């Protein structure tokens, strides 16, 4: 195995492009090193992107948020401004593992690991986040939901990696929330999760996005659930309709972490609770 730590995105892309064997990008390493330890991957090349200055930048402005691919998740929680604008994204990112993991893991890495249970992904999708993808041929912007194709699979080309995750400008009276269910209070993988992003107008939901995690091979956007909320103050009927839509959108598996029935049922519960939190954060009152 070769270990490289280039200082420019160009050099990083060139390294990835020139490797004929197994190449991995190393950001936080909290997934990659586990896979290496378990023998699940035996890379010929590991490219550490943390020495690229621009990738370590976290910029929070009125025009939007730029989260460099090498920014550890803990830094998101340390930004009061970001927490104010995107509390759901921050709480999702801060749920990835322990404080030890937080000091290393990145939202870009969480996305590229392409786990159906990734915490930050539903929140990023609900937020309308885009990934800035860089490769030998230059840069492109792609919606986060287009990055993951299935468990462990992404749409990135061999020479491509994510440079940053960007969040759009925030409209007034809007907020997001993320909830997941885990048997333990910490140090756990989401059995099921839900992210909700709402914008209110005169106390009524004007736009909504509902995204579920760990209920299908990839995070699931549930337009019918969003539709159930729009035009309401999250009254019981609207919430019930949203829950039904969420349950209908679930296509989970039975595994060591949860059953099909359990995931389906609790997906609705998480979505309902997350919706109420987001609504309150956006200034809504029932």
């Amino acid at each position, binding site marked *: 195995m070769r270990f490289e730590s280039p200082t420019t995105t160009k050099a990083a892309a060139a390294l990835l492009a020139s490797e004929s064997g197994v190449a991995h990008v190393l950001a936080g390493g909290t997934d990659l090193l586990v896979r290496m330890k*378990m*023998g699940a991957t035996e890379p010929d090349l590991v490219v550490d992107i943390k020495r690229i200055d621009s990738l370590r930048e976290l910029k929070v402005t009125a025009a939007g948020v730029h989260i460099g691919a090498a920014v550890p998740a803990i830094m998101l929680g340390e930004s009061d401004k970001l927490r104010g604008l995107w509390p759901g994204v921050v709480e999702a990112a801060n749920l990835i593992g322990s404080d030890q993991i937080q000091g290393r893991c990145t939202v870009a890495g969480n996305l590229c690991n392409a786990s159906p249970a990734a915490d930050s992904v539903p929140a990023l999708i609900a937020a309308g986040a885009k990934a800035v993808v860089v490769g030998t041929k230059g840069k492109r912007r792609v919606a986060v939901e287009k990055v993951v194709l299935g468990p462990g699979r992404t749409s990135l080309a061999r020479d491509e990696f994510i440079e940053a995750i960007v969040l759009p400008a925030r409209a007034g009276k809007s907020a997001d929330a993320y909830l997941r*269910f885990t*048997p*333990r*209070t*910490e*140090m*756990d*993988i989401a*059995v099921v999760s839900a992210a909700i992003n709402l914008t209110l107008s005169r106390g009524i939901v004007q736009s909504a996005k509902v995204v579920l995690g760990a209920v299908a091979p990839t995070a699931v956007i549930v337009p019918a659930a969003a539709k159930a909320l729009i035009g309401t103050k999250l009254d019981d009927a609207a919430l019930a309709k949203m829950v039904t839509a969420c349950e209908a959108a679930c296509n989970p598996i039975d*595994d*060591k*972490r*949860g*059953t099909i*029935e*359990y995931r389906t*049922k*609790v997906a609705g*519960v998480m979505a309902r609770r997350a919706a109420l939190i987001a609504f309150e954060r956006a200034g809504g009152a029932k």
Partner: protein
Amino acid sequence: MPYETDYTNQGFSKVGTRVNRPDGVDKVTGRAKYGADANAAGQLVGRILRSPHAHALITKIDTSKAEKLPGVKAVLTGKDFPDLTGGDRGMMNILENCMARGRALYDGHAVAAVAAIDADTANEALKLIKVTYKQLPHVTDVDEAMKPSAPIIHDWVRTTGVTPAPTTASNVAQRTEFGHGDIDAGFAQADVIIEKSFKTEQTHQGYIEPHACLATLGPDGSGELWVTTQGHFTFRNVCASLLGLDVAKLRVTASEIGGGFGGKTHVWTEPVALQLSRRANRPVKLVMSRDEVFKATGPTSSTSVDVKIGAKRNGKITAASAELRYQSGAFPGMWAMLGAMTSFACYDLKNVKSVGFDVLVNRPKVAAYRAPSAPMAAFAVESVVDMVAAELGMDAVEFRIKNAAKKGTKASYGPVYGPIGIGPTLEAVKNHPHMKRKLGKNQGRGVACGFWFNFGGQTCTDLNIGVDGSVNLTVGTVDVGGSRASLALIAAEELGIDYEQVRVTIGDTNSLGHNDTTEGSRGTFSSGMAAIFAARDAVEVLKQRAAATWGIPVEQVVWEAGEARAKGKQNNNLPPLSLKEIAAKSPRTGGPIAGHNEVVADGAGVSFASHMCDVEVDPETGATKILRYTVVQDAGKAIHPDYVEGQFQGGAAQGIGWALNEEYVYGDDGRLQNAGFLDYRIPVCSDLPFIDTQILEIPNPNHPYGVRGVGETSIVPPLAAIGNAVSNAVGVRMDHVPMSPPRILKAIEAAQG
């Protein structure tokens, strides 16, 4: 020198105080050396190849490529471990578990081993070993394994304990029965009878330190083993016997131990490491990975238990019976027997019967786990006790008090009890402020009792006094949780000197006589007893030296408050001689001063605990939060209360993990799916509240200080206490541990129809 072991009811000045542990600085600075922290010049890295199949014939192992890899110094398979057991089936089982012999019996069973110059080379060598398997049908569930159609794990197993003796093979290795009276007559008298079946899943001790050893064995048959173990003397005997070594030529040193809880009472890789070293003639360091620990060391049994209890309207139990089916993994064990013995031990029963079945399955060999087998039996019994109380409309604590065992009760496993603590722990529960806390919505409270035997066993200690009056006590039981502090307190108490003057060392196998494994809550009980006697032995020497110094008969010398005092009017002019003064003169009064003791410290005194617990259950997710937890247990005498509380809290926490989330998950393919700390969910800090403790001291008549073992009993009640609390919170009787969120939600929904 034999000493009287009876309880002396003496007053204490050191014992019972909360001093700082002597190994504290080493452990907070990172200096303490654990199993994986030792190295030897020229050491090799040992690694083990493990079966991916639950049950398979090993038709061929080709190691030739691995042997040719540069840097590989030894490759071993089952054929490299000749059968030296002389027909001892028990020893053969240990050997076969260390390395498969023609058949892999579980996912993770060792099939080959290598030693190489570094980890990369060793890992590469494992990949070059080609094993040809022929998969066989497997069974991992205890009830399934008992069915006549189940695949047979061992064709030599005949069920023992049934008449007439069977002639065909079975997965039921043993049937055991305990009890007395006539249960049919008892149930006939009952006004209320409750009968229910329960299941518990397999759990692991989950110590944070993986098994690790550094083995050196030369062609002359002399060897050294540095190892994390609860019983270095036992490891020595077992390894020597399996490998054909002289016991005295194998020196085993116990490293600091990073948790054991029973799991480090058995050998797993140590004979393999020694054999690799012998083959390579170099030291071999072998450290298990975490997934190896889960797959290939001994968890506790998964179980299936039926309990039936009958009682009269007045609240008196008339009869109780249980059938307990425990899987012991791929090799026979005694686990159902222990379940059957402990199941009704808390109660005074006229008619009682418990029947245990030890069952073989394709899972790793079951090992002891803290009060082994008792928690599962207690879960079933204490759940039914609650159900009977509810049916009678009685308070569950009152019902238990009414039926509690006491001095003179004939225990359900046979003997008659001496002074015991179950009644007092229940009275303490009844009067505890915890019981008065108001419960909110979705909240429930549960109480449960637990019992464990405790052992003593063979023990040998040395006490040496330095010329400056400082004292080294060498013991052969390992310090699993602060016993050095307790033993130093005991030595200081006996000698009448400061605690700080005593240092406690864990001796290796060549510095002391045999010491039994530190199991059965025996560490402080038995080494404490031997320390008392070794100190009294040394006091006799101190008195002789003082007598010689004074020129008076030794009969006129007494030992009081750390000094020799001359008794009698004629000796009034003789000022006392302190231990320090006598020690300083020792080179000229007869040489070093020492005490020694070897004892079979029997009579450890049975132990009881009652726990109470408040939970809140989220009715939409089935998630349980522990709101409050209190442990009441009889310690006999708490030598160091901090570490007694620590045992209570640690046992309770393990029990909480078991009750709520911990379980081995096997796939249909018989493979373990959660061999890691991410998906084998032991409680994390944020899962738990502070765990309150109350220490009761009902002296054990068989120990000079009244000590009882305290280490194990605290894991017995939690499954049942939480089971009762959750059942009370959700209004549905929980019958399957762990009570994970999916199981609780399913139970709630089933009850709602």
